[in-house]
């Protein structure tokens, strides 16, 4: 009985540690609400760690073209992400026009995009750390001559 208890405790501890690790880079959130009767409401919340892991295991031939194109802008993207991590929360861009608002902001370690129109509202949030890791994985997928 005591042994079973220890095993259960070990499994629970491993599960908690696994969940903690998975959520260590924050969560990616996508929320889409269609503003019509019986409109769809899509809400996806996934651990951000899956993004660089997914990029790592993605077929290299599939992303090599994008990877080659990003090489030139890699120092700029890295500098921007590094600076974003350090600076306070702020909105980069806010666009308002009749019937539609768009807001791109840095909020609590994430980049948040909000689009609110008469038809739908879209909310996307991605942690900057995960974006940095994903960019690193994308850069690593370039053919050796490109790097």
């Amino acid at each position, binding site marked *: 009985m005591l042994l079973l208890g220890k095993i259960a405790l070990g499994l629970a501890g491993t599960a908690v540690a696994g969940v903690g690790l998975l959520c260590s880079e924050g969560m990616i959130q996508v929320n889409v609400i269609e503003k019509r009767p019986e409109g769809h409401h899509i809400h996806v919340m996934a651990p951000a760690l899956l993004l660089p892991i997914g990029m790592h295991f993605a077929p290299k031939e599939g992303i090599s073209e994008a990877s080659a194109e990003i090489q030139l802008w890699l120092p*700029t993207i890295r*500098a921007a992400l590094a600076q974003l991590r350090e600076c306070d929360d*702020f*909105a*980069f*861009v*806010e*666009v*308002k026009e*009749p019937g539609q608002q768009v807001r791109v902001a840095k909020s609590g370690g994430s980049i948040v995009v909000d689009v609110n129109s008469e038809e739908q509202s879209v909310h996307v949030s991605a942690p900057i750390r995960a974006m940095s890791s994903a960019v690193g994985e994308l850069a690593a997928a370039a053919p050796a001559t490109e790097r």
Partner: protein
Amino acid sequence: MANGFRKLALLGALALAISTAAIAAQKDHYLHIKVDDPAKGESVNVNVPLSMAEKILPTVNRGNLHQGRVTISNEDMDGVDLRTILDAIRTAPDNEFVTVKQHGQDVRVAKLNGNLVVHVREAGEGGHKVDITVPMKVVDALFSTAKKDELDVAAALRALADAGDTLLVSVQDATQHVRIWVDSRSSQE
């Protein structure tokens, strides 16, 4: 005893004042761009921390932009020696340097309170009103490179951050109002 407390309180207040000043000095400055079109009910706000722009700019090496510097060809300048003109302005006292009045347009360029000021007024209803104010320190930083055909934009951004709250550009026409300014607030509210 009371004297000791008074000294302690004074030291505390001094320490508080110094730390507040230090925190204020460290505060990031933001470049704000606001485009308003009240007739259409449209507005665009862009906010960029100057420290971020300063760090990113040197990483962009495309076209005329290299290491935070812009190369200007002689053709672009149309034979105008900007450095010589600015040297003359820098050493001159506050004054109105250029006033051009031509058909339907007044252009005034002056140095006022350490700023280079440009006003353009177009006659007629809906004519453009342009006001540009650039601190001379920023202008100096812009031309601080050794090469004659280069502008040091990164140095200008650093100088802009040091210059404090400044309204740089205001353009008003019949329908739109564009404003570019620098302050220590992250939002435009």
